[in-house]
């Protein structure tokens, strides 16, 4: 009888990529519900449209790359990218914005670099930044949160929203407005207290901004679920949120007219939570060691704050994450963990002659 040489592991964990990706999709549901509740059907339509586009374009590009289509579609990574992009895009934005963003994410940011596991940048964020820079008007009109709509007006219902997405030529009036980060940016000369009193976006909110606080709480819940099911480690998200909070605390300026906003406002506005738990935890484009992830997360936190406070864009998670993706390989080189039995940490760039 012949014994085949088999090496460990002789068993395998129950986890596989498809299940992991499905879990991520499920974990976005609290955030999606919050978005839909406060901003209407737009986000839901975005997510659906992006998912369909992603699956189709992934299938096409796989065919062109002569890869097994069924196998790679079955890992759900395209769907995850699409869902994240759909959530990040403004609700009720025209359909072609979603389609262009998604195609760019899947085809250029992911497949042209070699597919899942080989992309140096987070695909969803690449797509987002491309459409943000290309179509600034469509990308910066956000729907007004439900609570702030005048009496008698509600968000368009599902069919109406579909019509808006596919056939409207101009951004709709009446139901669009500024986001909390926008208001802070444009309310020059007012102290924080004044902004809070004048802007119903804040005066009616619990602690950050109407609607937005719920959306961010939703993503926080989803993120904690993922953390609990050990999809990623706590290092990245915690480092990012802590640095963001610290930065906004340092520059809080006790609420003067120069202040870029309170820590709570920053933590629960824009894409903070979504970025922290769903984007920067991407195992492919982030740093790989725990220490590396701490540095990587902190870098993103700092960049987000800098761009929000002093940059041209009201929100900055996408830019910050892409910039940090650039640095990830560099961080990796200098944050090797101390291997068991060694007394010192080594550097990846160490050459044999150096010793």
């Amino acid at each position, binding site marked *: 009888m012949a014994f085949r040489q088999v*090496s*460990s*592991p*002789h*068993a*395998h*964990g129950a*986890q*596989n*990529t498809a*299940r*992991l990706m499905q879990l991520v999709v499920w974990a976005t549901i609290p955030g999606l519900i919050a978005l839909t509740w406060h901003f209407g059907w737009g986000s839901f339509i975005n997510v659906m449209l992006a998912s369909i586009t992603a699956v189709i374009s992934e299938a096409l590009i796989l065919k062109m790359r002569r890869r097994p289509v069924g196998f790679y579609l079955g*890992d759900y990574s395209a769907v995850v990218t699409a869902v994240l992009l759909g959530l990040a895009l403004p609700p009720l934005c025209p359909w072609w914005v979603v389609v262009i963003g998604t195609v760019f994410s899947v085809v250029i940011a992911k497949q042209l670099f070699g597919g*899942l*596991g080989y992309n140096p940048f987070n695909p969803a964020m690449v797509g987002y930044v491309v459409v943000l820079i290309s179509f600034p008007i469509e990308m910066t009109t956000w729907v007004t949160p439900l609570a702030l709509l005048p009496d008698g007006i509600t968000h368009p219902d599902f069919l109406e929203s579909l019509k808006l997405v596919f056939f409207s030529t101009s951004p709709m009036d009446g139901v669009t407005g500024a986001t909390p980060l926008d208001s802070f940016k444009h309310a020059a000369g007012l102290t924080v207290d004044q902004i809070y009193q004048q802007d119903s976006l804040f005066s009616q909110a619990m602690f950050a901004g109407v609607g937005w606080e719920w959306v961010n709480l939703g993503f926080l819940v989803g993120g904690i679920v993922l953390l609990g099911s*050990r*999809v*990623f*480690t706590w290092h990245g998200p915690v480092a990012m949120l802590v640095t963001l909070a610290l930065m906004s605390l340092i520059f809080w300026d006790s609420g003067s007219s120069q202040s870029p906003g309170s820590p709570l406002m920053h933590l629960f506005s824009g894409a903070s939570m979504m970025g922290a738990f769903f984007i920067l935890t991407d*195992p492919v484009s982030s740093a*790989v*060691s*725990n220490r590396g992830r701490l540095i990587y997360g902190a870098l993103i936190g700092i960049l987000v704050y800098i761009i929000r406070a002093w940059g041209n864009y009201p929100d900055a998670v996408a830019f910050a994450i892409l910039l940090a993706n650039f640095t990830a390989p560099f961080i*990796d080189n200098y944050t*090797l*963990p*101390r*291997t*068991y*039995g*060694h007394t010192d940490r*080594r*550097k*990846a*760039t*160490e*050459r*044999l002659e150096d010793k």
Partner: protein
Amino acid sequence: MCAEACPVSLLPQQLLWYSQAEDHERLEAHNLFDCIECGACSYVCPSNIPLVQHYRSSKSDIKKAQEEKVKSTQARERFEFRKQRIELAEKEREAKRAARREAAKQAQASTGTDAMADIVAAAQARAAAKTTSPEQELAKLQRAVSSAEMRVEKAQVKLDSALENAEPTEKINILSAALSGAQQKLEKAKVRLAEHSN
């Protein structure tokens, strides 16, 4: 998650990159040789990447490369040493030749043309010493005959005992061949003796 799983705190993801790239220096810097091949990283890998197989093949590649390096340095050292040795020997020979030439010149200078006659005389004396007397030659041939006889006898005895003990036929064949060979040699020796005494 693989980095979390690794009991020796390696970075399996990085190791995979570098082992696919065959970047041996990076692999060493990432302590690939501290990998105990437990497979924990592979166990938790959602993409089912055969990490351990990659590491094993990289490890053997690195070992092979190292061995080859050692071998090639040894070969180089050996080659260099040989070159040195040959050079040294060549120099010594050259020095000897020069010394001899020098000696010959001096001898020529001191004895003049007599030297030539001396050399011829010496050569003749050597040739004379080499030729043996007919008595010595006869004794030699007789010794050859008697030793050949002895050998024939010995072969006969061996063959007989083999036959008695009923040894395997191959052995007997070999022994009888040896016997006939010895007999032929004896014949030849006798013929030469006869030729000489004529």
